[in-house]
Each structure stands twice: as C-alpha cells, then as structure tokens.
C-alpha cells in the first residue's frame, strides 16, 4: 500500500461522518459501532480518499451511507464479491466490508466462505444481531434454535451456524469477536483487523432493541459480563471472572474451567496462541448456551491470525512475472496472432 507515503493531516471522527441523517432505530447497537469506526479511523494513517466501504443490504449495511468515504451499498449478500473486485483492481484502497448476519451467512454464505479462502485484504465487520432487522424480525442462520419470530411462530427448527467455526472451516486467516457495548474492545479489534494483510473477519455482537432485544445482554451488561465473557489475548493465560478468579485449561482438546479462587495456581492455564488454528477452533467451539449449567464463558478478542499471501498479491505477482518475462504484447501482435496471410491488391 502506498498509504505510508502520503500521510494525511490528522483527521477527527467527525471528518468521517457523512451528511446523511443516521436512520437506525433509537438504541440500535449499530450506532455504537459507527461511533467506534469513526473514532478509530483517524489513527489508521490512511488517506481518507482511499477508504472504500462496501456493504450488502440490511440495517447494518446502511452503515456505508454514514461514512464520508467512498462506498457502495450493493445488493443483498454480494458485498464480498464487489469488494473482491475492488481490491483486485486497486491495492491502494483500504476496503471495509459491512454486513449483517443474514447478509453474510444466509444469502451471502457462498461469497463469505470463498472470500475466507481467497484471503483478499478486506476488513470484514459482521454485525450479528441474530435477526433480520431490515425485514422486520425473521430469524437468521445465527439465531438460536427455537427462537420465535414472525416466520417461526412455533419456534425455529434451524440449527444455527457458529459463525467463527464456519469462517475457520472456510480457511479464514483472521477471526475475531467483539461487542457493540464495549467501545474499547471494539477499537482494539478494529485496529487489529486493519493491521491484518488478508481477510479480517470480525463478528460484532449487536443489539437489535426492536426485534431481538437483549440477545447479548449476558455478555454486554455489567451484572453478568465479567462472569460470562472471556477476553483472550495472545500469549496471555485465559483468566476471567469479576475478580479474575476463574481460568480455562485444556484437558486434551477439551477446555475446562479452573476455579482460581480456591487458591488453585494459574500455571497450566491455557495460554492463548493466535497462531494455532485448531486451538482457535476449540475457542470458537466455546459457544454453549449461557442458560445451561456448567457452561463455558464466551470468548472475545482475536481468535486466530495467520499470514498467508492475499489473492490480489498473488495475482499481481503473476502479472509482474509475465511482464518481466515477455513484456506486454502489442495490440497489433494480439490482433494479428501468430498466423497471417496476405492477399495482394
């Protein structure tokens, strides 16, 4: 990226707010995410004109209209494909993809998994409210089984995806999770995503007060947050709890809770290793229903980060190689091909 060369005058969050009225419902978690992105951007040291937002369709996807950057509010589920085309064309652009759980995992599922394996350098923020907001509250592939919605009055019979497991299974090179109501954590994760050279998938738990209120309160509200959230950091042991009195250790591949209050020593705790894919899968697998006794805490943070060539870098490498090998072929050569003959006048 040529961004380093042209450092812009330091901007402020306001510089990234467009002139359009934000039209989410009062109390929507999307506001908080918009605020964090606008707050973080001035620190990313990217010329404003190089930011491109690409989104699909959904409440979350309206995000694009609220950023004073270049942006495409595309069609439902296809943002990943549009964004791939953008990156393949201009690697100077800092491409951000905004999508909802329905947009990404339902109609957009195919492009989602293919983007993960191709690893275009795109920061992918998936606002997960476990519901279709824009269409007024049907369950999504991220909704809990049994959830009652307009389209499932007797409860959904759909087993949901575990979005992070899906991403890892699809060869994602960066997988993280954050929450709408934790600005600091969001800022941290957004920055980490931005540093990643590849597709950085960030799932953000987002409250939809209108159609799925409180879906994540267990993790976002004071009363329960510290007991239910496990904030992981590379190289740090997995400790959580109001008084950091709980830890996680690995028994083979099974994570188990250790009670540190009982004086148990913290050694032997699971030290988070962002680079271990299988461990990331185990971490993503800590997904049980907080209502169940003996359930695991829900992890947040960067689960996995792998350095793998991006699709566009490999593509440009081929172009460079071909150019250096034979150089561009002249149009006249292309027009004539190898075999021609002449008809005399």
């Amino acid at each position, binding site marked *: 990226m040529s961004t380093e060369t042209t450092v812009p005058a330091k901007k402020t969050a306001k510089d990234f707010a467009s002139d359009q009225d934000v039209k989410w419902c009062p109390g929507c978690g999307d506001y908080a995410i918009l605020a964090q992105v606008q707050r973080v951007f001035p620190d990313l040291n990217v010329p404003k*004109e190089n930011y491109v937002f690409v989104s699909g369709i959904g409440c979350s996807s309206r995000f694009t209209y609220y950023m004073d950057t*270049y942006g495409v509010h*595309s069609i439902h589920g296809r943002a990943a*494909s549009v964004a791939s085309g953008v990156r393949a064309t201009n690697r100077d652009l800092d491409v951000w993809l905004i999508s909802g759980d329905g947009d990404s995992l339902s109609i957009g599922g195919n492009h989602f998994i293919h983007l993960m394996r191709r690893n275009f350098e795109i920061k992918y923020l998936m606002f997960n409210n476990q519901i279709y907001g824009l269409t007024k509250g049907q369950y999504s592939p991220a909704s809990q089984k049994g959830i009652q919605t307009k389209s499932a009055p007797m409860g959904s019979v759909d087993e949901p995806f575990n979005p992070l497991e899906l991403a890892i299974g699809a060869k994602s090179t960066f997988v993280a999770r954050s929450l709408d109501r934790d600005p600091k954590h969001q800022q941290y994760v957004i920055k980490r995503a931005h540093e990643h050279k590849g597709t950085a998938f960030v799932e953000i738990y987002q409250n939809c007060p209108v159609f799925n209120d409180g879906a994540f309160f267990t993790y976002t509200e004071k009363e329960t947050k510290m007991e239910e959230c496990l904030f992981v950091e590379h190289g740090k042991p997995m400790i959580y709890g109001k008084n950091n009195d709980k830890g996680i250790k690995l028994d083979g591949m099974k994570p188990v809770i250790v009670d540190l209050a009982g004086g148990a020593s913290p050694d032997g705790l699971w030290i988070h290793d962002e680079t271990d894919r299988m461990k990331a899968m185990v971490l993503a697998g800590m997904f049980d229903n907080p209502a169940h006794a003996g359930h695991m805490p829900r992890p947040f943070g960067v689960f996995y980060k792998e350095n793998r060539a991006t699709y566009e870098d490999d593509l440009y490498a081929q172009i460079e*190689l071909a150019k250096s090998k034979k150089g*561009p072929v002249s149009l006249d050569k292309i027009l004539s091909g190898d075999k021609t003959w002449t008809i005399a006048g």
Partner: protein
Amino acid sequence: MDTIEKKAGKTVEVKHAENVVVRFSGDSGDGMQLTGSQFTDTSAFFGQDLSTFPEFPAEIRAPAGTVAGVSGFQVNFGSKEIFTPGDEYDVLVAMNSAGLKSDLHKVKKGGIILVNTAGFDKKNLNLAKYPEGADPLNDGSLDGFTVYKIDVTRLVKEALKETGLGMKEIERSKNMFVLGFLFWMFDKSMDYTMGFITEKFGKKPEIMDANIKALKAGYNYGDTTETFTTRWKVDSAKMPAGVYRQITGNHATSIGLICAAEKAGLDLFLGSYPITPASDILHELSKYRANGVKTFQAEDEIAAICSAIGASYAGALGVTTSSGPGIALKMEAMGLAVITEIPLVVINVQRGGPSTGLPTKTEQADLLQAIHGRHGEAPLPVIAASTPADCFECAYEAARIALEHMTPVMLLTDGYIANGSEPWKFPNAADLKPITATFVTENNNPGGKFLPYKRDERGVRPRTKPGTAGLEHRIGGLEKQDETGNVSYDSANHEKMVHLRQEKIEKIANYIPLAHVDSGKEKAKLCVLGWGSTAGAIKTAVLELIAEGHDVAHVHLRYVNPFPKNLGEVLAGFDKVLIPEMNLGQLRQLIRAKYLIPATGFNKVQGLPFTVDELKVKIVETLNSK
C-alpha cells in the same frame, strides 16, 4: 469448366468449383478438429474465402465409436465470398461408422464420401448402433454417392512400420494421412501443415517424422492409386487486399475487449464462471497477464458479475461472460449496475435453452431476456454480433458504449459464431475508434458537495475513481436523488430518475450508426430483417435470390436496443418484413410493438443455424403470399 490432366499412366479429371464444403467426422480421439483447421488454414493461406463450423459432442465425452461421441468439423471454402459453412457437404470424411451414420444425410447427391474402412468392422458398426448385420459400405445405401473406401489404418501402419513407433502413436497419425489425401484431392500444398507439424512436434522428432510421413503417404496414395481419378480445383477468392488471419468468435470477442481496455487506458477485469460455450473467452483472456489483464474465476455467476462491478467501480473495465443459465443468475446484479450507472460489459454466448437445455447447440432465444429480464424499469443497451470476426467489433463497441455512456451493456453472440471461424482482415491498433474513458478529479459543484449523478447533455453522469481526494460519495441500489445520488424515496424524484435512466439509453441511438440495407435495394417487396448470427445465411440467400431476379433485400441489426434511429423509415421502404430467428419470434415482437408493422417470422429452434436453402424457400414463399 472442368479439365483433364494426364500424369504418369493415370488420367485425372479436374473439376473446377466455386466453393466446396468438406466435413470431417470421427471420434473425439481422431483429431478431426485439428485436421479440419489444418485444411482450413491451408485454404486460407491459398487465398480462399471460407467459413467453418466445428461440432463437438455433447459436453461429456461419449464412449469411442458411438454417434454421441462424434466430433465434426465443417469447412466451406471457395473462390467467391463465403458467408456460411454451407448447407450440405460436397465431401464427407468418415473416420468410423458413427461418423457416417450421423452425417450421411447432409451429403449432397453425387457427393464424395471418403471412409476409413477400418472404422466399419463389426465392433464399430455396433457402437454406431447400425442394425445387426447391416453393411452400409456395401448394402447399396451409399448408391448415388462417389465412395472412396480407404483402409487408412492399415495404410498408415504400413507407411510407418519402419519408424518403430508403438501402435498407439501410429494410429494417432491416421488423420494426417487423410489430410494428405485431401491436399492431393484439392490440389493444395502441404507446406503449411509441414511447418505446423515441425513446430508442434519439434521436441519429439520421431512423432514429427511419423506425422510428416503419414501426410505425404496420404498425398502420394491419391497421386498414384489408379482408383482416384478426380481432383478439384478451387481458385483463390478475389478478397480485398490486405493481411488476414483466421479467427473464431470467442477469440475475437476476447481481443476486442483487450483492445477496448487498452484504447481506453484502463485495466481489463473479467469476472467469470465457466460455462459452455462461453468458457473460451475466460481461457483466452487468462493468457494476457503480461498485458495486465485480470481474470477472476468466481465461485458462481453472481460473484462473477459482482466482482466485475466492483472492478469497474474501482476504475477498471469490468466484464462478465456466461451463457443462458448463468446470465439468468446475473440479472439482479445487472439491475445494480443499471441504477448505479456503472460501466459494465455482460456477454451472453447464447446456447440452446430453456434451463440446461442443449449446452453445445446454438440458439438466439435470450434476446427478450437481455432487454426485459430484470425487475423494475432497468434499461440497458443490447448489441448482437453477426459473424465470428464481427465479435471483435461488437465487443469493442460494447465496451465503448459502456464506458462512454456509463451503463452496463449486453453483448449477444451464440455458440455458432463463438466456435465458428472465418478469415479476418484485422485492423491496425492505430485505426481503432478511440474510446474516451475519463475520471473526474474536480468537484463538479464548486462550493457544494460533489454531484455524482449530475448529467451531461447525453444524460451521462461523471465517473469517479475511489482514491480521488475530495470526491468521496456513496452509491447503491436504492433509488437515488437526482444529482446528489443520496437515497430518496420521493415519488416525483423516482419517476424522474426512471425517465432519466431510460432516456440515457435511448439517446445512445444518437451515437451509433444508422440502419442501412445490407443487400438489395432501399425499396423492395420484401425485407428480410435479421440480427446476430443469422447474417451469413440470410445474406447468402438474399444475394442468390436477387441474382435470380427476386425483389428482396436484407437489413441486419447489430444494435437491438436501442434500435438505430432510422430503422422505422428503413423498414417503411418495404411491402413486407420477414424476420428469421433461431427462436419463436423475439425480435419480431419488438419490431411489431414499436413500429406496428405486420412483420412475420421464420423461426427455427433446432439448435442449428439456418441453411441457405430453407431460407430461400421461405423467402420466396413469403414473396408470393399476398
């Protein structure tokens, strides 16, 4: 007039012909495509005009020897202008029973049939599903044809026995023997093919020798064997002076796009998902990395078009290619390109439908889908290529219109011209029409915010490139406010935008050539109106009928949406309008609705192009009907 030539104890009659149609039919494994193209190139180099039509077996390779497995190559070459591969065969080369079975019905009365007798043993006859005990070579079913029975297999083995090659390799040169024989028969030089062989097998000398030996053996076999007493002489054609090449439609389309992008000073990006018969464009374009051409094999057609939209948005020339089923999947995304007004070229190499239909056969049944296949009022220009070489012009033109008018453009070709080939007097790069693809860098609304949807007199909005400081703005699929492009649900604004988008497309009629009469007079009893790949057959039929004194003319459309401004007046010059199409009457509906003229149709939906004969019959019939 025919002549007699005497040569070493052998008298040979030399037939002079204006044009000859040769069809090669054999197994996928028999190398018919290669034999055919070698014969074709040689004729071309000899300055003959020609047109070819390869026929591949339905997608998967059927077992050897079966009719389903027949691979055919048809070439029509001559000293006159050639517009089609020909209706019937003067010469059929049948390498096995299946080849004869599948193509005999198209051999002209009195035509020549060259059979490789080795391909007519019991096994082969069974595979070709000939009734038990049938013996087509001797049961009189070939009476009325001149039959050359040659045990090619045996002859080749003999010719190559010294080479010490294995049977497999030896068998592989069968086709060269046949080619050599045909070169003798049509009095053609072997040089071109010799050159080809030397180049191709340079690294495998023994294979090279074998092929050359086989080629010569075939030639000499004709020259020396008593039984063959007729040769054909076809003069070179009086074609416009210049440098020519042979080209297929898909190849022409590919380089048309490359030229357009380079002329416009843009990168070319192709987002595509393989599908017959469009895949070869993806294959061809993926060879040009050295020219910065980016090909992206997407996970499906939707991703393909959306990636192309993203590429265009970012500043490239975005293109996507497919055929019927894949085009259907792209329609929603095309609507996005229409409402955002992003340049995009969508190429539909039409094939037999509906649904998966007949993937390897040709058809023109996607015209109305191209024009009306999107939800809402989503107009876009549609142009159609008429011959293999014309695909170059049309691809170039599609890109020009897309870039200069900020719109997705649909280009229609079809399997017939996509795989067919013809000699092409290709242009110099310098002579190509310039394409202006500019990006705004200045705010077009000094003091205010940039107006991404402020139009010029052509109704065209400015194009921006992300990365341009100061012009940041958002676009999307929701209805947008005039000029600002901000989301707007206002009723009056919506109606205005619908009209602005419609008028922008209609105004393109001011930037394309007028319609004209291709053959015949401006006023006549009957106008045969065509579009796309029917051009060659219609032109041939109409020219012949005019020569025969009929009052008929031919008008051919490249621009099907919008129509050329003067099409109405042009058609008004005729008492009747007949529209031949490889569908149930799609252009006919558009013409009747627009001009309220009682145009009638001639519709063939057989997955095959029109023959000149059937067209002539229908035209005469229409002329005589009152």
